[in-house]
């Protein structure tokens, strides 16, 4: 063999070795090249599965009889089955077909097993999830289920549908993300449906406010804490109408800051909230991403409203659902229609993993939810035998054994990343807060009862039946609004609300050594905030305090979100006695904001007051620019940016006392409603900036200073007001990230009409917003219009991956098809079809 030939063979051997290595092992985080690039089975194969299935016939084990699934022109599956179990099996099948990866992400997130994909990057989130005991509680709940119960039947049938798909799917059907990660799908288990509800509970009902509050008391005193983070909102526009026909302003001057007990207070955001705000980003993350216009108050929000026939132009009840959540691709929602003649005919959205429709309508009733934000989590200070390695806790003068669980966390290659030992008292998981051990009592860790309640709600034929069905629902607490074809409308804040010892409120960390401090049960359904066909002819909720405290002693929560959206939607509904479905669509992206109506006059008044005695050209310019604003957050608006910057400055300048020395950030920020209250008290101690020695600032000085600073900030960040630099749609945009954060699979920098506190909330990093929009008219025939920011398919090659985003951005809705039978869908209405047959037939 010549030297040249030897070199050639040597080179070939090296190339072959390298090719086989990267082909089977990959490089770094990139999955093995072979299975990835293989044009028959790798990522390219996804293009072949990007279209809606058409004329597919397949067998499913355990199916009772044939199921026909017809996809309409919007890729919505209409499931026609003979039994409820079959319909649920088919739902599991189509959801798995379109959203298999999403099913697993949610499961892993709840189980604290994301590090098995993402390594140490996900370890902190995983440890938090496991420490909360979410998966553990789901497993216990599942183990306690009666095998013959409706809930077990539903989640079992759903799992059978998922299994059917995963067992028969072809190589080209494996979702993109698995290929990129070099992973195979985790087998779906029925208990994973319960994981999903726990995950929703974590998203919607987890709070560390009690812990923050302890530090606030140390910092500013208990009275001031109570006034700045009050039990009752200072602006009352409750969900259960109080008959006033207008908002009520319960403004009282807050007590000034007390002498701090611990000036060198540890920063709670570092000590206690490592991942608590991970869903929407930490305060500092938000500040980094949106600069001077960052909303201080996180935009956790949802809206729903309904009008009675007397106030609708058509003479039929109208209902709107507008839940807001973290935006993602694929979307959290999946639209579907399930028909079982005589049993079920329900249309709406499900969350992958849930064995039924969560928000939607049937032939008689429509419904939607907003989060109640109730206080359903308490902390108890425990005494243990050994704080380092506890084995028992002190309760009622004796040691009780702690339950423990050893949790192991693995990385992508099976390497052990961490081992945690978790402890549980009879109340719940034990967590460390600084040097103390606290146990958690949380309704989310109890039985949710959501599956059956939602299933029965979907079968109800009237408002009364719907309310009765949902009365068994426990967590996470929701404001359920409902309307029916007879013209009834109702709203109820549904969930398990604990009855507590002592004062009854849940704002303090309680002594865990006495069982007398434990919860004593739950409020009866008859005490839930509720309204049926109110005289005002409409109902609305937007996460505000559900019930007027003047009418009840029921403690539901604390530190309620500012009711700006509630004020706006109520104002819109009061002003229109001939509401149409089209008007409701427009409400979703209504550009006005009650916050601006309140604070703009305050800024301008203060600026004028200060300018009388002080010649300040920048302040005068800022006031002139703000006065030009029509207070509308339209896409082409040029002044909202100045107002938002002024609000941020105002909160920073006002709440300086809430910043522990040396921490660099607020321990917690009172809501803007509390700030609005403070504006009514120009002499309040809170206006003084404690950082300026020997000077006592007044309200007007702080307002004027904030406006002046805001102009400077905006000029620095966005340039002069002339031109397009201040356009709202250039400053504030929506960002819908892929579940794994792949930029190429995300929809970023979307211009939307809305802002912080608007009915269409858009704030901060723009990753939170309207996750589903629905308007339903309950006439002789139910008509509905919907959209959500995403698409039905989880396959990035599919045109159904993100096709609805443009509709969503424009605030448009699409009329849905609501056929009674498969035969009603014809011609252009049909996008594809699947026939499922009992295996072997």
């Amino acid at each position, binding site marked *: 063999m010549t030297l040249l*030939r030897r070199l050639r063979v040597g*080179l070939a*051997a090296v190339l072959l070795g390298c090719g086989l290595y990267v082909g089977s092992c990959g490089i770094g985080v990139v999955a093995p090249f072979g299975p990835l*690039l293989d044009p*028959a089975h790798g990522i390219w194969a996804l*293009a072949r599965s990007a279209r809606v299935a058409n004329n597919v016939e397949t067998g499913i084990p355990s199916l009772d009889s044939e199921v026909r699934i017809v996809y309409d022109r919007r890729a919505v599956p209409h499931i026609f089955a003979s039994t409820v179990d079959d319909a649920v099996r088919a739902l599991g099948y189509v959801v798995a077909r379109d959203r298999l990866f999403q099913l697993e992400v949610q499961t892993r997130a709840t189980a604290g097993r994301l590090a098995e994909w993402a390594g140490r990057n996900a370890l902190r989130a995983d440890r938090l999830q496991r420490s909360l005991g979410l998966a553990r509680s789901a497993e216990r709940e599942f183990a306690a289920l009666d095998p013959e119960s409706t809930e077990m039947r539903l989640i079992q049938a759903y799992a059978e549908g998922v299994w059917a798909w995963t067992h028969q799917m072809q190589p080209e059907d494996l979702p993109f993300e698995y290929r990129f990660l070099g992973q195979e799908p985790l087998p779906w288990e029925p208990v994973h449906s319960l994981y999903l509800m726990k995950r929703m509970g974590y998203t919607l009902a987890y709070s560390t406010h009690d812990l923050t509050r302890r530090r606030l008391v140390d910092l500013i005193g208990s009275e001031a804490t109570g006034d700045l983070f009050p039990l009752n909102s200072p602006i009352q526009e409750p969900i259960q109408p109080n008959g006033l026909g207008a908002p009520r302003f319960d403004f009282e001057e807050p007590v000034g800051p007390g002498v701090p007990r611990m000036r060198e207070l540890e920063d709670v955001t570092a000590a206690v909230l490592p991942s608590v705000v991970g869903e929407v980003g930490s305060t500092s993350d938000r500040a980094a991403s949106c600069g001077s216009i960052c909303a201080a108050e996180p935009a956790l929000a949802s809206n729903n409203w309904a009008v009675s026939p007397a106030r609708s132009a058509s003479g039929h009840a109208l209902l709107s659902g507008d839940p807001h959540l973290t935006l993602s691709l694929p979307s959290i929602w999946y639209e579907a229609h399930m028909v079982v003649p005589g049993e079920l005919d329900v249309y709406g959205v499900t969350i992958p993993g849930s064995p039924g429709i969560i928000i939607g309508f049937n032939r008689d009733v429509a419904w939607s939810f907003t989060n109640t934000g109730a206080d359903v989590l308490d902390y108890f200070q425990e005494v243990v035998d050994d704080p380092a390695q506890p084995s028992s806790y002190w309760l009622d003068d004796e040691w009780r054994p702690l339950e423990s669980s050893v949790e192991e966390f693995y990385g992508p290659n099976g390497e052990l990343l961490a081992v945690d030992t978790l402890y549980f008292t009879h109340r719940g998981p034990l967590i460390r807060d600084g040097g103390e051990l606290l146990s958690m009592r949380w309704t989310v860790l109890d039985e949710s009862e959501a599956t059956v309640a939602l299933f029965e709600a979907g079968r109800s034929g009237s408002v009364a039946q719907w309310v009765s069905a949902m009365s068994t629902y426990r967590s996470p607490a929701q404001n359920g609004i409902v309307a029916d074809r007879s013209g009834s409308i109702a709203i109820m804040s549904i969930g398990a609300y604990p009855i507590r010892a002592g004062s009854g409120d849940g704002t303090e960390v309680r002594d865990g050594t006495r069982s007398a401090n434990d919860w004593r049960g739950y409020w009866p359904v008859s005490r839930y905030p509720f309204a049926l066909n109110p005289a005002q002819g409409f109902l609305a909720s937007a996460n505000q305090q559900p019930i007027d405290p003047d009418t009840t002693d029921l403690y539901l929560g604390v530190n309620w979100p500012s009711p700006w959206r509630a004020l706006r939607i109520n104002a819109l509904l009061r002003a229109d006695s001939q509401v149409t479905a089209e008007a409701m669509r427009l409400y979703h992206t209504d550009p006005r904001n009650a916050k601006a109506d309140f604070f703009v006059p305050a800024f301008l008044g203060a600026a004028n007051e200060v300018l009388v005695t002080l010649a300040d050209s920048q302040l005068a310019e800022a006031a002139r620019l703000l006065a030009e604003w029509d207070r509308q957050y339209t896409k082409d608006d040029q002044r909202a940016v100045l107002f938002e910057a002024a609000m941020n400055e105002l909160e920073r300048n006002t709440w300086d006392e809430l910043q522990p020395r040396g921490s660099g950030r607020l321990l917690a920020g009172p809501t803007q409603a509390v700030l609005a209250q403070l504006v009514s008290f120009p002499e309040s101690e809170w206006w003084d900036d404690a950082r300026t020695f020997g000077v006592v600032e007044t309200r007007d000085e702080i307002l004027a200073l904030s406006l002046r600073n805001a102009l400077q900030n905006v000029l620095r960040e966005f340039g002069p007001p002339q031109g397009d630099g201040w356009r709202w749609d250039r400053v504030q945009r929506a960002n819908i990230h892929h579940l794994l954060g792949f*930029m*190429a699979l995300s929809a970023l920098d979307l211009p939307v009409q809305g802002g912080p506190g608007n009915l269409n909330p858009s704030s901060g990093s723009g990753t939170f917003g309207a996750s589903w929009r629905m308007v339903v008219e309950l006439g002789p025939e139910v008509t509905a219009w919907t959209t959500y920011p995403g698409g039905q398919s989880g396959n990035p090659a599919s*045109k159904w991956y993100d096709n609805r985003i443009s509709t969503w951005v424009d605030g448009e809705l699409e009329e849905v098809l609501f056929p009674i039978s498969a035969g009603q869908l014809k011609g252009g209405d049909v996008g594809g079809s699947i026939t499922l047959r009992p295996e072997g037939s």
Partner: protein
Amino acid sequence: MIVRRRNQFQIVALKVLLLGMAFALATMVFGWWAVPALAAVWGLIAPNRNRAPLLAAVAAGWGWVLLLLWTAILGPIMTLAARAANVMGTGSASLLGMTVAFSMVLAWSAAVVAGALRSPGRRQ
């Protein structure tokens, strides 16, 4: 002379065509491992040992191009290419090129290594 060369070209083209289809079929049935495996077999049995690696590389690339074309008929491959390439930090043309090149490198190197294992007596 010209006719002979044309005939030779046609024979080579036919070999590439058929071998490419064999690579495509083998990939569909056995996955990407079929490429180096089939190329190695070709390297062992090909009548012309010197040309075998090049022929295997071109045929493997052609085989995978065939599969990509088949995929393009059945679905939106360019949408997928754009999105997948972006995730992997490259362009869609690069990703397509990388895919074809990967098969060619595997086939060429496997054929060369296999050819080196052949007994000298079979060398032509």
